[in-house]
């Protein structure tokens, strides 16, 4: 499903502040698996997650998703691919504060021909599934951290993607909310979604749903635990 071949990502290449965030990483994640990118801060797991989520391109190496080399897709096609296949849950949730819960969830549908009414129906269904339907008209700043994360999950799922990526999803949640998040992820796994999570939270990587753990250190993949 997801395959990285000798992937390297360098920021500010050729400048004094050049940083090699990911160095020659190769890995494979099968469809329907839950994979964890584990490592301390600065280990490169978030950058690797960005490469898998198609929001960044490798400086060298290749990324394949469902057999298609996404790392070399032109921007236009990469955008469409990302929209249709990848749902992203950001560490800071990255919700748009001026918009309501419902509007935030439908943002990925705006540049698509989806009629607004259908978009709203899909968003309401997702919010209902995540227990957020009563908050749909709230501004996101009026929500708790756990609620904001559920909005971010709904937004990630609005296009019914086959891959869900989540960056440090439990970093801002207490144990109860973190367990709630894992319960949602588990149900998504049962629906057949491929899930990739970057984390250093034991609650996540020790969870029984996790199929594979990739240990990262200084931008390199040091161990694969299945």
């Amino acid at each position, binding site marked *: 499903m997801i395959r990285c071949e000798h992937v390297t990502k360098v920021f500010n290449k050729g400048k004094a502040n050049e940083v090699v965030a990911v160095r020659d990483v190769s890995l494979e994640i099968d469809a329907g698996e839950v994979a964890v990118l584990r490592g301390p801060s600065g280990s490169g797991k978030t*950058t690797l997650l960005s490469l898998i989520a198609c*929001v960044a391109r490798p400086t060298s190496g290749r990324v394949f998703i469902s057999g298609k080399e996404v790392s070399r897709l032109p921007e236009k096609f990469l955008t469409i691919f990302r929209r249709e296949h990848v749902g992203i849950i*950001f560490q800071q949730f990255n919700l748009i504060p001026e918009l309501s819960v419902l509007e935030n969830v439908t*943002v990925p549908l705006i540049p698509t021909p989806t009629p607004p009414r259908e978009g709203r129906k899909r968003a309401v269904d997702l919010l209902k599934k995540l227990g957020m339907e009563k908050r749909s008209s709230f501004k996101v700043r009026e929500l708790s951290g756990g609620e904001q994360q559920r909005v971010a999950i709904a937004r990630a799922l609005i296009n019914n993607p086959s891959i869900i990526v989540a960056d440090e999803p439990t970093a801002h949640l207490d144990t109860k909310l973190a367990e709630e998040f894992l319960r949602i992820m588990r149900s998504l796994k049962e629906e057949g979604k491929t899930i990739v999570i970057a984390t250093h939270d034991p609650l996540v990587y020790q969870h029984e749903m996790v199929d594979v753990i990739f240990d990262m250190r200084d931008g390199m993949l040091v161990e694969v635990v299945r």
Partner: protein
Amino acid sequence: MSLEKHRNILDYAVNFLLRRKGKNLATIIVFTLVVFMLASVVMMMGSLKQEARETLSLAPDITVQKIIAGRQGLVPLEYASAIQNIRGVSRVEPRIWGYYYDVEEDATYTIIGVKSLDTLPVEVVQGYLSSGNAVLVGEALAREKRLRIGDKLILRNHRGGYDKFLVAGIFSSRSALQSADLIVMPRDKAREFFGIPEGYANDLAVYVANPSELPNIAIKIANALPDARVLTKEQIRETYDAIFGWRSGVFLATILGAILAFAILVWDRASGLTAEEKREIGILKALGWSTGDVLEMRTFEGVVLALNSYLAGIILAYLHVFYLGAPLLKPVLIGWSTLYPEFELMPAVTLEDLLLIFVISVVPFLAAVVVPSWRASTIDPDEAMRGI
């Protein structure tokens, strides 16, 4: 299918603008003020030039003045005979005219003497006309001095005494400049009022049969009368244009500071994308928006802001100049206004004027909105979100 997508993006852009009311209102206010200032200057200068053109349309083909020691003096009527003998000259009219300062109104009027009042295209009251002291006054002047037909008009003559005139008619003109300060009286009365001796006139109005011969005739007059200043209609028009152009140029230069401040605001608002705005573009791209989608949204936002401000600025400028009489600009653009009676500017706005203002204001604003957004949206969403 794709129409739905564009509608979605437009809805989102408008919705977003409404949610950032405070910030966008500030932009609209500043933008509107700049358009208002620019448009007021352009409209007023356009109107004054139009007034000048109207005035010139009634001017003689050639005006001949006598110059004594570098200053304008009275022209002997023999000059008229000399000019009349030049081939191509159809008519020469000695003119008696002068300025009159009205202490009461603190304004200066122009008094013109004509052969006969009843030959003018003005409805006059014949009964009053036969009184011998009849005058015609401009509509705006009559309004200013609250004069009606049959009223007396008392003016101080060159000897210091007071002459009593009867308002026999009030004439209107397409040009407010013409009707605002004019008093027309019989030529002999005007001569007497100003104390201009017999056998002299202020200047000579020369008319030619063939306009293409005008420059040659002007040269012939200048050669025949070395102490005369010969002014063609074209030269006067160029002088008007130069004066108005210079005045508007000076004023535009003075508001350059305001325009510069606007440019900085525009750049700061749209161009200098804040880290927050860059991050937002990164988020949208990560969520499946293409560079084109982001630019479309930003352009919609810019167009809504710019067009609203542009229209508001133009409407306010129109009201300011043509309804309120440009109180903010008149003292600057009509420097002698304290000596000039009030007059209404004739609405004269051309498509070129509107386009000029559009190009100066809206185009740079849209460029400042679109270009930085394009730069932010062409980098990877990950980098945009990190602010790299």
